């Protein structure tokens, strides 16, 4: 079974600064996806960024980027130029990718509450 660990229950950052959220995972699989989801106070789960394990290049989406270290099983999220609207719970998640394409199940970490201060 896969496990996802987020070791930082809470973090805070000043507006316009950069912050990095940590995530480690444990799996024996070689083919998988990793995700960061954002959950603001509205509770809506929003996909922030996705990384495919076979790709060496780190994914980026505007102000969000990841540092994917496959050997170390580490997947951190960097948020640049933090904005007040980035205040949310952030979840790291893992999905095994079967060759048959039939496994679509997400395994989530416990989350990191990020507060962006003005």
């Amino acid at each position, binding site marked *: 079974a896969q496990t*996802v660990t987020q070791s930082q229950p809470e973090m805070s950052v000043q507006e316009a600064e950069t912050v990095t959220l940590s995530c480690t995972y444990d799996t024996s699989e070689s083919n998988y*996806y990793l995700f960061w989801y954002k959950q603001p106070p509205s*509770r809506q*789960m929003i*996909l922030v960024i*996705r990384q495919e394990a076979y790709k060496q290049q780190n994914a980026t989406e505007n102000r969000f980027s990841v540092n994917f270290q496959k050997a170390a099983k580490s997947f951190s999220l960097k948020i640049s130029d933090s904005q007040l609207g980035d205040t949310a719970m952030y979840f790291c998640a893992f999905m095994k*990718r079967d060759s048959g394409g039939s496994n679509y*199940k997400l395994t*989530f970490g*416990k989350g990191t509450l990020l507060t962006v201060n003005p």
Partner: protein
Amino acid sequence: NAGVTQTPKFRILKIGQSMTLQCAQDMNHNYMYWYRQDPGMGLKLIYYSVGAGITDKGEVPNGYNVSRSTTEDFPLRLELAAPSQTSVYFCASSYYEYEQYFGPGTRLTVT
């Protein structure tokens, strides 16, 4: 395009009561999922469906039932509500395996 919708938004149940949480999507996605989120935790998969008429258990299926008679709808049934089922329930759907769209959630309290 409403995406994934869930009803109700909030519900309080007494122990032993039954209810159905509704989930619908208008994106013609084959894959649909039910998750629960307990306080301070990430989401855990209850049931999922890969198409109409096909469902399978996730990580925490006990106490729940599902059916999928149409592509659009994936209701979750609680037969005998227990306090341990107090949680926030999320429905999600996807076309590609790597892009699940979530509904707004249903907050359920069992007392």
